[in-house]
């Protein structure tokens, strides 16, 4: 069939184009623009080329923050994914307890980041916080303001508390979609509890788990508000993640050029990691087809 060409159709795309331009392309290009220039204020810019990028890639401060971020994301995924699956498996499938569990699970997700931070900041304080004071009374040396380990524990526990529910809800959605017949067939086949999990439940949760891992990775890799509120990146620089470092650089020191370069590198790392996760998880189990 002959296709009708009508270039007026391009006008239909225009609104989306404008929207994307203002929401993504122009801001990103501004950052690119900053990253290759230097400025001493008064809107006077000097061409800097790849100088900021070179500086960044040779900066120990950047690598330290990157490593902290990677460790943090790995710890978060290692805790939240198994824990989320476990809780989802333990949740009831029918009866009055279902809505109760679902609402309870959803509650932490509804709390804004900085509120979560504030809650834990107060909760963990040795002088007035319920947790901090109780631990201190029990003789446990817990002080997130001075002890890097305690600070890390606080930030990790806070994130687990805040976001495990997301993994739970996604996994639960995957689990309830499995028809009863699968479990009955497994019983007839004499499958063990582990086999049921390994060959029925896990494959059926595969897609939602992919989403859960991606979301949790991206979110944890970009973590900013909670550690900023609780530890402010300290003690020392021990909880200074890349986003915190970036804000320090851009707004604290007003080094716009290096900050822009770092933003771009940061963005590319997130993009690359997501691509890797996505590719690995979608291809998993399909190579033998």
């Amino acid at each position, binding site marked *: 069939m002959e296709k009708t060409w009508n270039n007026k159709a391009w006008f239909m795309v225009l609104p989306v184009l404008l929207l994307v331009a203002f929401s993504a392309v122009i801001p990103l290009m501004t950052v690119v623009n900053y990253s290759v220039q230097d400025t001493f204020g008064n809107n006077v810019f000097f061409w800097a080329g790849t100088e900021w990028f070179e500086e960044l890639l040779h900066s120990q401060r950047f690598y330290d923050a990157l490593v902290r971020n990677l460790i943090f994301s790995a710890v978060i995924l290692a805790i939240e994914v198994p824990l989320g699956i476990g809780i989802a498996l333990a949740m009831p499938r029918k009866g009055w307890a279902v809505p109760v569990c679902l609402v309870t699970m959803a509650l932490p997700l509804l709390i804004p980041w900085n509120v979560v931070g504030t809650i834990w900041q107060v909760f963990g304080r040795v002088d007035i916080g319920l947790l901090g004071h109780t631990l201190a009374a029990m003789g446990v040396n817990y002080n997130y303001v001075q002890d890097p380990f305690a600070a890390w524990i606080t930030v990790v526990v806070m994130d687990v508390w805040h976001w495990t529910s997301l993994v739970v809800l996604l996994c639960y959605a995957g689990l309830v979609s499995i028809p009863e017949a699968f479990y*009955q*067939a497994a019983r007839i086949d004499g499958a063990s509890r582990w086999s049921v999990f390994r060959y029925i439940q896990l494959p059926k949760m595969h897609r939602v788990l992919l989403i859960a891992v991606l979301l949790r990775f991206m979110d944890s890799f970009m973590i900013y508000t909670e550690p900023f509120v609780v530890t402010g990146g300290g003690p020392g620089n021990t909880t200074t993640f890349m986003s915190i470092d970036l804000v320090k650089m851009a707004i604290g020191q007003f080094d716009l050029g290096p900050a822009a370069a770092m933003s771009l590198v940061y963005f590319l790392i997130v993009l690359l990691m997501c691509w890797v996760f996505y590719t690995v998880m979608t291809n998993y189990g399909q190579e033998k087809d």
Partner: protein
Amino acid sequence: MARINLDHIAHSYNPDPKSEADFALREVHQTWEDGSAYALLGPSGCGKTTLLNIISGLMTPSHGQVLFDGRDVTSLATEARNIAQVFQFPVIYDTMTVRENLAFPLRNRRVPEADIKKRVAETLEMLDLTAKADRKARGLTADEKQKISLGRGLVRSDVNAILFDEPLTVIDPHMKWVLRSQLKQLHRRFGFTMVYVTHDQTEALTFADKVVVMYGGEVVQVGTPEELFEKPRHTFVGYFIGSPGMNVLPCALEDGGAVIAGHRLPLEGRYRPLPGKVEAGIRPEFVLLTDDASGLPIQVRSVLDVGRYRVVRGTLGGHDLNAVVPEGMPIPAEPRALFEPGKLNIYHNSHLVEAEG
């Protein structure tokens, strides 16, 4: 393979059943012979899946016992009963290949690897799946997946019975025939005891040696397809089996004859006096339309041409009466209905009454 005894089985979801209505499955007392194929036929919600799940052990009946070859298995779990079950929707293990799927029940039972290999190869052969043995089960068509579900039962040498719960629901119509005849063939070759739940009478009648018709949680008749057609023991069976179903007309018995819509018809045999609701049942296939004055006058409402024959939908004295008219036979302008002698069944409170002598 085993003989299955259902010894006064009944099931109620209510822990303290008071009346008949509290039972999802009313008392069933039956023996299912080793190596036979049975179909459980009935409308949705009649208790046939409940009965099947009781046999497979997915449910424990609230009353009665299940015996396999005389051994009480009522309290045994599914996995200990050695039965196989094929469900309405194909159940396969997505991440495994066809071969691994078939080996799965054997691996779980710690069968030696060499035996597994042999049994799986035989089963693949049996089901015509050898060519696809190393494909992922996920990518196969619905009928192939259903064959895998069946294969996971066949692969076990110790299977007492194979149960089917409406296994052809999601299969394309043209594949239904193929799969059903394959099942039939497997049954003839290997003599498995098979129980097949369906609400499709064609499936039941073509598959089974004996059809168990269920209605409202009760077994209303067990019989060969011919018996169900010729002598339905309950008006429901007459209505449910056959297309269209049996005509059921209110009637009165009067010394040696039945009075239907004011006309007296002679009956073969004598009936004792029956108080209460009495009905006469006649298959549309045994209703003859003529212009003979001896027939009962009927009003024709519509005629459906079904290809090989026509179905005449009419009324007799205000009651529906269908007749099947073979191809090429004219329908009279003022038709009268004659009933083929000996094909009229008498029902008392919906149950068949046999003539005395």
